[in-house]
């Protein structure tokens, strides 16, 4: 039976839950891993209390795009360390991309990730299965088997499916399971040799360019295939103005197309790539000023559905190389909310309700998760954040095993305060 002393009462926060149209000052009572009640001045004399006055209480944030590196590259990140970084960023759930070693292309790997996460990760980990065996782009992976084991979407992230026939087959097959197909849209022939956005800065630095078209031709292809097959298609880390326009048009036509934007793409541009620093190297690359404007517009007008970190840990030894040798990707779980508050909310572009949609409601919908809500009976995953808290990101204090970020030393206005998973506080900011 329920032990009321294990209950948690979050008191007097501003509760924002867009899925139920809620934005109100209230208490939230958590019991046995579920939302037990919401309302003003809840009576729960035996419950532990958490004062949230002046703070936002939201359904737990879900990162659609995390690389946990385990199994296979535990020197860069583990399910445990990545889970802690997620919690410290205010995330209660992450989707783990399948490009581990071995690739998550069968139920055994899926089971391993889920079991390890259950034992070691403070946050929920939902594995994404590979589209193709080994993500080699040749033959479909065991998608049905992985779905039974617990995957919530499929993707060959990082090793995009070049073969349009295979992608068409994958979408068709996935539609039968209602699984979302996530694609890292990149035509590898167009991006070959590229190191940063194809623009003046790349020319100036003598670095090979990654054209906007290398993303856009694949966004276009995938939208066409999704329309044909009826699959739910989600664009990973969308980065160009042209892609925004295509997704906007697809939505106008009523297609089940969604997309995510990363904080680094809506914050930085190619001109910010300084001094051949590998911490500015990622795929897709930091784009032009015009592209960033289009991303911000898309986040504001509903074209973009989600903010996702594309947290991609790499050890310092790999990033401290010649720019062309450094691997692509940066960590991002701990800075995502701070950047979103700075660039989207404090800039006046969106309100807090929309922010919660981007971080929680929509990611839950895209991944088919019964979360992103504070309805009574829902999982007690809660993100409490303070839009005004001043803090400075010191990557040497990161929970991640890696430190590859361009945001070290960045001063933020607003950030996570408390992360609650299944009714338990898993992370709390230091006072």
């Amino acid at each position, binding site marked *: 039976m329920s032990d009321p002393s294990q209950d948690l009462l979050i008191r007097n926060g501003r509760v924002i839950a867009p899925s139920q149209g809620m934005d109100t000052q209230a208490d939230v009572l958590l019991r046995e891993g579920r939302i037990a009640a919401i309302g003003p001045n809840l009576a729960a004399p035996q419950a532990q209390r958490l004062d949230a006055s002046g703070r936002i209480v939201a359904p737990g944030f879900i990162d659609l795009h995390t690389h946990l590196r385990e199994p296979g590259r535990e020197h860069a990140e583990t399910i445990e360390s990545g889970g802690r970084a997620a919690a410290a960023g205010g995330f209660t759930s992450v989707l783990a991309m399948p490009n581990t070693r071995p690739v998550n292309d069968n139920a055994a790997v899926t089971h391993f990730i889920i079991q390890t996460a259950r034992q070691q990760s403070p946050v929920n980990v939902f594995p994404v299965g590979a589209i193709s065996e080994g993500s080699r782009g040749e033959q479909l992976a065991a998608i049905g088997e992985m779905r039974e084991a617990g995957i919530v979407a499929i993707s060959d992230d990082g090793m995009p499916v070049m073969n349009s026939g295979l992608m068409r087959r994958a979408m068709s097959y996935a539609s039968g399971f209602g699984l979302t197909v996530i694609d890292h849209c990149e035509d590898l022939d167009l991006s*070959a*040799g590229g190191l940063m956005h194809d*623009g*003046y*800065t*790349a*020319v*100036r*630095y*003598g*670095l090979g*360019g990654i054209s906007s078209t290398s993303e856009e031709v694949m966004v276009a292809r995938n939208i066409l295939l999704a329309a044909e097959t009826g699959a739910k298609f989600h664009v990973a880390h969308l980065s160009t103005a042209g892609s925004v326009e295509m997704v906007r048009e697809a939505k106008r036509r009523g297609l089940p197309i969604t997309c995510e934007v990363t904080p680094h793409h809506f914050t930085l541009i190619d*001109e*910010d790539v*300084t*001094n*051949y*620093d590998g911490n500015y190297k990622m795929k897709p690359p930091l784009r032009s000023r015009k592209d960033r404007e289009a991303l911000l517009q898309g986040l504001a007008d509903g074209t973009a559905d989600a903010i996702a970190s594309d947290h991609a840990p790499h050890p310092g*030894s790999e990033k*401290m*190389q*010649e*720019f*062309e*040798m450094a691997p692509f990707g940066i960590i991002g779980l701990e800075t995502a909310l701070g950047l979103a508050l700075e660039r989207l909310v404090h800039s006046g572009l969106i309100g807090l309700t929309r922010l919660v949609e981007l971080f929680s409601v929509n990611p839950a919908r895209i991944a088919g998760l019964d979360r992103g809500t504070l309805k009574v009976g829902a999982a007690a995953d809660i993100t409490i954040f303070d839009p005004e808290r001043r803090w400075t990101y010191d990557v040497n204090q990161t929970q991640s095993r890696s430190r590859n970020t361009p945001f070290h030393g960045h001063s933020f206005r607003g950030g996570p305060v408390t992360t609650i998973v299944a009714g338990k506080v898993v992370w709390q900011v230091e006072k």
Partner: protein
Amino acid sequence: MQKRGLLGIEPLTAAEIQPILDRARFYQPLQARTGKKLDTLRGKMIIHLFYESSTRTRTSFEIAAKRLGADTVTITAKGSSVDKGESLLDTLNTLAAMRPDAIVMRHSASGAPHFLARYLETPIINAGDGTHEHPTQALLDALTILDHKPSLAGLRVAIIGDIVHSRVVRSNLYLLTKFGAHVVLCGPPPMLPREFECYSPNVTRTFRIEEAITDADVIMMLRVQLERHGTFLDSSANEYFRSYGLRLEHLQAARPDAIVMHPGPINRGREIGSEVADFPRSVILNQVENGVAVRMAVLDLLLTGSLSRATEELPKAGT
């Protein structure tokens, strides 16, 4: 602390470049003398670290150092720890621990010396980094032009060839436009992206060699870097030469006193007709000769402490 070195032309002002050219001119007569060795840099140790094959630049730097009386060690990528999988930073830290006075470095990766300069105190002289910069080449080109023209200001300089892959072009664009020259870039469109016009209002593009050469004071030809084009280029010399090779008859459209330059190595019959390479106003060998004087000037000014601002970090774009 301000680091010394020469990473590129981009961060330098004309006022900072001028003393290097003046010093190079001071060393020019020495090249034709017997008994060329000086003791300006006696007791100084210079490491030449070449991660990419190079004949003229490496030899030129070595001769320059030796003519100034410095001791030199030359390391090429073959036969060093490079083959043993050591990272570039570890290799350079190892070399720096032996306390050389400067490291002259050629590397196939753009920005390799800029990356290293963030971690190393030893001054680095960039002898060419990937497709980024080749500052001493631009300096020797300027010196060569000034041997034939009173000033760089107002000159029309045509640079023709594989622009996108050329570090020589990038360094020259900075240097020439800082001194008021007008640069016309020419090559087939895949080798000449429109972003090159962003360097300066004094840079224009054309895809027609005849247009580039018209009224040119200086014609600078570039090698096609076949190795960087993968399979996307018809690799026959004839196909390229037909549209973009410099032939003798082209020169009639140029100014009568126009000079022809080439940073080398030249591919006769691809980017330049053999008869043009040997024609009287071809100054290709003068460039090579001036290379030694320019590198003496750079080493001298750097190691005696007068060239300090050349390794400042790359400024952000946006002029």
